[in-house]
């Protein structure tokens, strides 16, 4: 097979020369010797690492799982990334055994072969489950020769659109259900005895083998990879391409990139490296502090990360601990990690100098198809755990194992009992459970284990279930409800139980009660779920409740409209349920309640905010009528806003609205008049035109009112609007006014708008003056091409042209406009591709001359915009991929190419989406949400833009990167080389690996304060720095990769007597009030302002009592600290998260 593979490669190579853009040269391949790889490990103090198995026993492991006999099953693929033409499917399942107990595998058996890029496996139920591309197989060895001789296709129809996203990570949950995952590009259509199940994009599947029922547990994530259950049955996933750390997985949870998602949840630690396999440590071989911690593989950064979770609200916050393992060997690719039968930690090393096949050629010769290793990490001075006999043990021996302090033992005891069947186990299990002392926590957990065993036997008992429900421990209660999520049909008084659950003091119990309500899908369970609103809500609870109300509206709205639902008399619950639906009839009911005075001011605000995108003509007319009678101007503005939204994209124009709008224009409240001006346009109230014309002509008038007048007049249209805009363009000289007139002309007279814009660009001198007009113009689909023509013969300053090119490129507009601007401004950009020789020369220079520290300074230059779009760890922009471990995954030539020609390779999830609307507008940026009703994109200015689906004329993935070409054109070669060197070091062992400490990395830095701002602080007090009521000149700022804040980058001391400080600020968010301990690397002359409290003497470690919500903390480096150049702030203790 191996030889054949190379032969195939040579043939391909001869037919067509390797694409010139591909990485070339085999020079930076590390040594594949086991000893070389072993020597490169950085092992934590007190631990040691040895090879458990390597080639030729195994090659290219993808997933591994143990069996009850202590054998390690490994699925491997030498075929990845793509089968060679004519090659047979030849991938294998290998079983490894350490028969003499010396910690090294000494026996390997090929259990199955002829597989086609299999990416997951788990032994169980007397055979082996294998994910084999489109199919989930069950393989069995019926004659005991150690090889599979029976192959059953259990499920088929899984997508294969990308071989590193195929069905993978097979895992038994504590209830004996089987879980498996798929990733972003996979679309699956699976026929089951319960109907077809479809899953688009990433997600977690849940399968009960004995009933063959297959359901989706959770959707989304880019490449959900690791998946594991903790001691209490809660589940967690990692993402191999997302960067938000550990994700809490519960029924109906939806994460980023799930197609059609109306709302998504976030991971627990944004800015983390991407993670593959996940394990939860629970074995006395590891020290006490390691118990219940999460270990997951950062295959890009050649290391294994470590996290600790702490309950927070209904979910968790995660704290990163020091790495479990790191390596300086670039081919070390940890992809799976599992505790072994001896308590040691086994790490599957896929071994490859390069990863990915989206960005590196399928047939790149540096791709390793041969090697693969399993490493064994153990604590030096701690005894290994004994290998217990589980396979074949009697029920009476297995039951006490459920009380083991080893996860491994409990898990295999449960699976072994499952295999014995209900008839053999139920009775002895009942007797064993009866003997537990439920006053002890350990026995309460054992009781839960007993309930899980019954689930594994598919033999639910309401009595047993009630016994765990009675345990006064939120963790057990939550687990009980998880069981109920599969068994609610079998519990008679389930709704009574759910009412208890939804009112529980613990938010996670409430979340699980809500999940079960969501599954039952009845009006009565909607009412139960809504009872959660009577206590504090958090993100997962609100996410789920909104989803239930919205997605099940067809099931409960008829009952509500029939008067059969009362929400226990709570207007809060009614408002929440109805506004979540987004249905017009729901808002009609809400307006009725509003006019009857049944809603509070806050509730009315909520209703009006959501009304615009739901109303039809009838309901909009009801609202317009109400608005005309409304006395409270704040409320009236909210009503008019709703009417604007309804009339805008959705064309819902109330009947008879024209009669009311003239009155609104006359109101003294500017906000009402301004809304009125827009509605004049939307509702075509021609009689109001003169008022708007008057306002637009007065350049001294407030900007908002003039913008509204422009919009109104543009919508009224006609020759009089057109000539007015053109006349005012010539008369009014300020950039803002001229941009306004160009915008007004854009729809009705695009050519004229383009001509005027070209004149404008030729007239202005400075780059700053470009943005207003260009920004407006780039929103249109037609205008860029027209502007290109209008620029013919015009001369622009180079600065103006360069800025215009940059703005256009960031919005995905290239072609004629870019060329015309270049010509008009005589701009030269260094955006050409390099010849192979030039590339090789540059790669060599990066290695010999590049300096990563200098490179970091280049990276931080504002005009390069790196930090605007990219984060390193949790600090920086979110438009582009996180660069935290880019050096670990990307070859140097790839980095150079990506800087010079960003469109060549684009990371999944970062493709720019371009949307043209029916009204000719263009939106481009990263896709944030794509729900059935609307699309939200993050534009290049990091603003969210919502486009209603009904308005979309076309939507496409742009082949052009959001990163403009030529950003580095201003750099000298040495600076460029330093920058590449810096990027290539990111995530690798050394100075540029983001430390797992919880350091504050996202800051705001104070730029020069004017006298008024300084006076304000001096008169009112330092605490105003932490309030946003007075706009201070804060600018976004981040720490260095080391976590240190470069205080010396801040502007000169502010003229603020007596401190004369440099000022920076960060914000901490708390889910609930609590203690937080901060550590500061320097304290001399440092003043801390926490909320409105001032600390003039700051200890190196300071404990703070923070309230729930966000607290701003300002740091003043005073005169006394003038020699301070670096400051590091660490969150030592407490459940605080740094807010961006």
């Amino acid at each position: 097979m191996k030889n054949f593979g190379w032969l195939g490669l040579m043939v391909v190579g001869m037919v067509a020369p390797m694409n010139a853009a591909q990485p070339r040269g085999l020079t930076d391949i590390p040594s594949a010797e086991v000893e070389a790889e072993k020597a490169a490990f950085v092992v934590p103090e007190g631990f040691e690492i040895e090879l458990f198995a390597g080639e030729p026993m195994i090659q290219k492991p993808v997933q591994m799982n143990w069996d009850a006999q202590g054998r390690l099953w490994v699925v491997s693929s030498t075929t990845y990334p793509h089968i060679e033409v004519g090659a047979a499917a030849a991938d294998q399942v290998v079983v490894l055994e350490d028969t003499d107990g010396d910690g090294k595998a000494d026996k390997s058996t090929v259990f199955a072969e002829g597989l086609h890029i299999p990416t997951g496996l788990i032994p169980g139920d007397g055979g082996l489950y294998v994910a084999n591309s489109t199919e989930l197989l069950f393989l069995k060895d019926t004659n005991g020769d150690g090889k599979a001789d029976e192959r059953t296709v259990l499920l088929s129809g899984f997508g294969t659109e990308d071989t590193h996203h195929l069905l993978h990570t097979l895992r038994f949950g504590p209830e004996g259900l089987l879980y498996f995952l798929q990733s972003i590009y996979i679309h699956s259509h699976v026929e089951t005895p319960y109907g077809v199940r479809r899953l688009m994009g990433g997600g977690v599947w849940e399968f009960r083998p004995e009933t063959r029922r297959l359901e989706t547990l959770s959707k989304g994530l880019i490449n959900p990879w690791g998946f594991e259950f903790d001691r209490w049955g809660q589940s967690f996933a990692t993402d191999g391409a997302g960067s938000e750390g550990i994700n809490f997985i519960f029924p109906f949870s939806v994460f980023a990139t799930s197609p059609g998602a109306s709302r998504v949840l976030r991971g627990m630690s944004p800015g983390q490296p991407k993670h593959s396999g996940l394990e939860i440590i629970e074995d006395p071989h590891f020290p006490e502090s390691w118990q219940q911690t999460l270990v997951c593989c950062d295959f890009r950064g050649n290391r294994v990360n470590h996290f600790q979770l702490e309950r927070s609200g209904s979910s968790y916050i995660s704290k990163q601990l020091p790495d479990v393992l790191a390596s300086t060997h670039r081919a070390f690719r940890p992809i799976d990690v599992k505790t072994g039968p001896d308590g040691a930690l086994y790490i599957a090393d896929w071994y490859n100098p390069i990863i990915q096949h989206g960005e590196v050629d399928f047939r790149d010769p540096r791709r390793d198809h041969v090697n693969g290793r399993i490493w064994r990490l153990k604590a030096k001075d701690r005894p290994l755990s004994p290998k217990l006999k589980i396979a074949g043990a009697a029920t009476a021996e297995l039951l006490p194992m459920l009380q083991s302090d080893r996860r491994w033992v409990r898990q295999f005891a449960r699976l072994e009992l499952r295999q014995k069947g209900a008839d053999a186990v139920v009775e002895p299990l009942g007797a064993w459970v009866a003997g537990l002392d439920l006053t002890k926590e350990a026995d309460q957990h054992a009781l839960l284990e007993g309930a899980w065993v019954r689930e594994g036997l598919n033999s639910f008992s309401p009595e047993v279930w009630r016994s765990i429900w009675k345990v006064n421990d939120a963790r057990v209660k939550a687990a009980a409800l998880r069981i109920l999520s599969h068994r609610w049909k079998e519990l008679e008084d389930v709704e009574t139980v759910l009412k208890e659950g939804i009112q529980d003091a613990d938010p996670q119990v409430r979340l699980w009660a809500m999940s079960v309500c969501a599954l039952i899908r009845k009006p009565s369970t909607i009412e139960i779920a809504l009872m959660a609103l009577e206590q504090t809500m958090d993100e997962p609870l609100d996410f789920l409740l909104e989803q239930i109300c919205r997605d099940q509206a067809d099931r409960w709205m008829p009952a509500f409209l029939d008067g059969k639902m009362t929400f226990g008399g709570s207007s809060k619950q009614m408002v929440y349920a109805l506004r979540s639906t987004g249905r017009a009839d729901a808002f009609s009911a809400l307006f009725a309640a509003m006019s009857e005075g049944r809603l509070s001011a806050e509730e009315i605000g909520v209703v009006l905010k959501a009304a615009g995108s739901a109303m039809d003509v009838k309901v909009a007319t009801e609202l317009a009528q109400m608005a005309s009678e409304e006395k409270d101007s704040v409320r009236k503005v909210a009503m008019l806003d709703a009417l604007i939204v309804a009339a805008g994209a959705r064309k819902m124009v109330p009947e008879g609205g024209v009669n009311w709008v003239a009155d609104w224009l006359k109101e003294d409240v500017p906000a009402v008049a301004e809304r009125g001006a827009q509605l004049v346009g939307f509702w075509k109230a021609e009689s109001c035109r003169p008022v708007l014309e008057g306002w637009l002509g007065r350049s001294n008038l407030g900007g908002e009112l003039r913008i509204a007048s422009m919009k109104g007049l543009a919508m009224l249209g006609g020759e009089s609007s057109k000539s007015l805009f053109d006349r005012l363009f010539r008369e009014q000289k300020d950039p803002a006014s001229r941009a306004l007139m160009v915008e007004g002309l854009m729809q009705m007279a695009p050519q004229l708008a383009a001509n005027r814009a070209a004149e404008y660009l030729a007239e202005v001198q400075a780059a700053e003056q470009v943005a207003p007009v260009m920004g407006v113009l780039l929103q249109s689909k037609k205008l860029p091409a027209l502007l290109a023509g209008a620029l013919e013969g015009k001369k622009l300053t180079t600065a103006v042209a360069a800025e215009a090119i940059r703005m256009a490129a960031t919005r995905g507009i290239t072609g004629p406009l870019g060329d015309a601007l270049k010509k008009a401004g005589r701009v030269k950009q260094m955006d050409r591709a390099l010849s192979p020789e030039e590339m090789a020369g540059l790669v060599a220079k990066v290695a010999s001359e590049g300096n990563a520290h200098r490179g970091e300074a280049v990276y931080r230059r504002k005009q390069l915009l790196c930090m605007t779009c990219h984060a390193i760890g949790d600090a920086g922009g979110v438009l582009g991929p996180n660069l935290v471990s880019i050096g670990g995954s990307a070859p140097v030539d790839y980095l150079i190419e990506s800087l010079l020609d960003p469109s060549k390779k684009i990371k999944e999830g970062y493709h720019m989406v371009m949307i043209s609307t029916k009204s000719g507008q263009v939106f481009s940026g990263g896709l944030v949400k794509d729900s059935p009703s609307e699309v939200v994109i993050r534009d290049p200015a990091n603003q969210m833009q919502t486009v209603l689906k009904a308005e979309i004329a076309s939507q496409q993935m742009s082949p052009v990167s959001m990163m403009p070409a030529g950003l580095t054109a201003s750099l000298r070669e040495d600076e460029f080389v330093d920058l590449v060197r810096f990027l290539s070091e990111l995530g690798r062992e050394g100075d540029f690996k983001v430390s797992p400490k919880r350091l504050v990395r996202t800051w705001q830095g104070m730029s020069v304060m004017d006298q008024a701002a300084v006076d304000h602080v001096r008169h009112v007090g330092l605490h105003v720095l932490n309030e946003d009521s007075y706009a201070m000149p804060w600018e976004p700022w981040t720490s260095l990769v080391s976590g240190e804040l470069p205080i010396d980058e801040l502007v000169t001391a502010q003229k603020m007597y007596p401190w004369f400080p440099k000022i920076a600020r960060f914000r901490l968010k708390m889910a609930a009030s609590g203690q937080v301990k901060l550590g500061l690397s320097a304290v001399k002359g440092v003043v801390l302002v926490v909320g409105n409290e001032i600390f003039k003497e700051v200890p190196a470690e300071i404990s703070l009592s923070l309230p729930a919500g966000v607290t701003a903390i300002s740091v003043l480096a005073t005169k006394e600290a003038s020699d301070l150049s670096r400051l590091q702030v660490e969150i030592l203790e407490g459940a605080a998260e740094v807010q961006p």
Partner: protein
Amino acid sequence: MACFEGAGFGQGTEPAQPASPAVEKKKAFQFEDGDRVVLIGSTVMEREQRYSCFEPRLALALGDKVVTVRNLAWSGDTVFGHARSYFGPPQEGLDRLKAHVELLKPTVVVLCYGSELAFEGLAGLPEFLTGYRKLLDLFRAKVAEVRFVIVAPPPLESLSPPLPDLEKQNRNLLSLRDALGKFAQAQDAVFVDWFGAMGGMPKPGRTANPLTENGVHYQAKGYDRLAEALVTGLGLKIPEVGQGEMAALKKEVGHKDELFFNRWRPQNETYLFGFRKHEQGQNAKEIPMFDPLIEAADKRIQELKRAALATASRL
């Protein structure tokens, strides 16, 4: 309409099962030398390639005539193209199918669609039939003289608990069978009744000797019977050949189907032909390289067929 004695039906009130009208009018389907046969549908058709039961029997039944068979079925597919679409709506799936039809230019298309209606109910039957007609038109638009064989989905089985009782679902399939028979007639297509041929409406209770793995998906023995029913349903007679010859033929068909699967439904579509082809699209050049290998396998299938028939005639 012929009435069918409800053999084994427990209750006298059980409705008898009328055979589909089209079945009675059935005459032998005329295969031409050089016909390009395409199988299409959902899982039941897709998994044919795991068992290779149909093509060997068809080849043997056709004697000297040479036809090729390609399986374009897809788990979970519908007449609307649900399973064939990736990032877009089902229509994208039909567009993808158009490209495959363009590539294969089939002269005979054997379709088995509609099994999902067993679970989704018959409310959507009118839309289903409209979609089916459009699907046939899609083929007609590419190959004017294309002939169709419409196959009714086979019955489901109620296996032992905890697997579900699928009686209600089978009732839906029974009605669907009748509707498909009429539809085939209206479309001038030949109709093959797999529902009836595989036992028709099962008697209430649990299936005694199941042919499916889970009540829904047939396995080896089931596919033998499905293939026989399809070939004989087309009015052909399958000659007896030796077990060894049959096994060799099946193996080669399986090999050809695997090559073709990697040709028409390759992995990594996102990079080869999808929206990331500007990155790794250069690898797509390998895909047509499967064609000569598939043709060579077709030739070997014919050689094995001739050898099998020759051996059989000597016996």
